């Protein structure tokens, strides 16, 4: 289908000799918001990293396709250039590289065009204002000495500046206070439109309040055991995952 962004077919993947994802299928189309729920250790972060192409994870069988193209063997930077973005659960601290420098380098790498310093800086400043970030953070080293909340905001800042086609959000709302969740969730809503898609891992449904969720998947022991509409979020919130255990 022309509007299919991500298509995962019978994916088996893991680290070293340990299989974590055990036969997983998932299709995400343009304009959609998908939510993945599941207890700790069910394979949610592994799924995100396998889509992004983390070299630590091995694909044992199956395929990851993006816009109809098999990217299973593509290195991470190529996937990013095709339009996949991962907002990390625990973003790395990288001394010596400023937020602005990294973002300008990244955007030039993705678009293949030179960014004019002043235009870019202006755009960055506006995006930071929207996320209620102190503009001085543009000059700080990437995530170094940032609080948990500041790191997550910086991830969303990157999402807005790099404007990918598919945003993978790995617990972007965890560890944030109510106001911060609000800001992050506004950022995601600002990003989302009919030409892109979000795949969101969350334990906390507040981030979803402002988004129109299309599909919810429940991941247990490396398989999707239950799928449904937004109403499934409330069911899980009420009943937990235990009643689904026998399906895994």
């Amino acid at each position, binding site marked *: 289908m022309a509007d299919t962004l991500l298509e995962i077919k019978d994916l088996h993947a893991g680290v070293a000799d340990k299989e974590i994802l055990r036969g997983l299928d998932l299709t995400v189309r343009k304009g959609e918001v998908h939510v993945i729920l599941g207890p700790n250790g069910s394979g949610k972060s592994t799924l995100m990293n396998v889509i992004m192409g983390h*070299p630590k994870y091995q694909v044992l069988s199956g395929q990851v396709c993006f816009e109809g193209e098999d990217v299973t063997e593509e290195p*991470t*930077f190529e996937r*990013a250039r095709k339009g996949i973005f991962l907002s990390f659960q625990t973003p*790395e601290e990288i001394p010596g590289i400023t937020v602005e*420098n*990294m973002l300008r380098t990244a955007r030039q790498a993705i678009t293949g065009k030179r960014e004019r310093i002043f235009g870019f800086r202006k755009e960055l400043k506006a995006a930071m204002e929207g996320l209620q970030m102190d503009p001085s953070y543009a000059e700080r080293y990437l995530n170094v000495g940032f609080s948990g909340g500041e790191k997550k905001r910086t991830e969303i800042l990157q999402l807005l500046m790099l404007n990918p086609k598919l945003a993978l959000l790995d617990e972007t709302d965890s560890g944030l206070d109510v106001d911060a969740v609000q800001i992050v969730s506004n950022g995601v809503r600002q990003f989302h439109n009919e030409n892109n898609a979000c795949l969101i891992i969350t334990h906390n449904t507040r981030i979803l309040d402002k988004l129109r969720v299309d599909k919810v998947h429940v991941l247990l022991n490396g398989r999707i055991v239950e799928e449904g509409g937004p109403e499934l979020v409330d069911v899980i919130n009420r009943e937990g995952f235990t009643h689904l255990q026998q399906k895994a």
Partner: protein
Amino acid sequence: MEDLTKKKTYVADVERTLYDIRDEDRSSYKTAKGLTEDIVRDISAKKEEPEWMLQKRLEALRIYHQMPMPTWGPDISALHMDDIVTYVRPDTKMTGNWKEVPKEIKDTFDRLGIPEAEKTSLAGVGAQYDSEVVYHSIQKELADQGVLYTDFETAVKEYPEIVQEYFMTLIPPTAHKFAALHGAVWSGGSFVYVPEGVHVDIPLQSYFRLNAAGAGQFEHTLIVCEKNSSLHFIEGCSAPKYNVTNLHAGAVELFVKEGARLRYSTIENWSRNMMNLNTKRSFVEKDGVIEWVSGSFGSHVSCLYPASVLHGENAKCEFTGVTFSAKGQDLDTGASVIMLAPHTSANINTRTISKSGGKATYRSAVKVAPAATGAKCLVNCESLMLDNDSRSDTLPVMDIQAADVEIGHEAKIGRISDEAIYYLTSRGIDEKEAQAMIVRGFVEPISKALPLEYAVEMNNLINLELEGTMG
């Protein structure tokens, strides 16, 4: 899936042809191989030196023959002193006019960017080609302020009273065998004298380079900053590659008087066969400040530990260093501080990088004498290894004999983080650039301390070192 962790650890050696430019040998005179009293007398006679300098040379030669080779540090057994041609004189006379410099020499300098450097705000250039200074200039304003800036031979003849007062007093021939060798055969180098209260606003630059195969270079630098004066002196080194072991045993003596401030910056970029056994020392009096910025690239072996003697109350030392050791290199660098007076302070901040089997050692000695009450010393040394074949060691020695002192030491040795590379590649930056960004970030505290064009040169050197197939 391909094993990317393995791929990214291999960084090929740099193509150094840009820096390794070799002209035909145009020396008009070479000493016989090996070191005898006749050679030393000959060197002195050719320079038409006064008797006192000849006597200093001969005394140093006697000490040289008595002293043993050092037994610690990197392996320098490849060095056969009898094979070193100690002195090479290019067949051109001193000149202050760029137009009069011979074409091949000029071409080499052009490729190293020296005239450009001068054009862009540097106050004076003393470029050393082999053992003689062939090009020299200083801006008129400096001369009018009483600042003396000449090659060292000229200083011996024209300012003997200053040279005699300071020469080889901070680095006596008895310091070690290579200091003695230096004292016997020194040739070329810079002399700077800044009178009391004079502030030299623009950096003075000198550029050294070795050219003839088998030639050692023994340049002597002497800088005196009188009371309440200030100066920034920059020394850059680059040498073409030869297959005979080359020796560099220069000496740098810096005198910082009461309330004076001296910043001494060097980026040394030697060819891969160079034994760089350089000695640098500073003597700092009350309220004086010495700032070292030191970049060590290239060479086969380097031993370089600039020393600061904080002699007067409240004297300060800031040391900032970066060392990059690649395949076949053993770079042993660091700093030494001797704190002799109350409230002296030192801040040592270094970064070392090793790759492709290179070995980088951080070695420092901090001594706080009993009189140095209230002294403060902070040491921060960080090492980054780019692959599993490389090696990094940290050897900090501290000898604290005073009470009421504040001493801090922080050492970090790490590998380039796979997660950091993954993070940057997930933003569309390819692996090679991600690695280069991380390395540049690692040395950022040092590049920040350099004047802009030197920071650019250092970044270029790092990029050249990192260049090549990343798998």
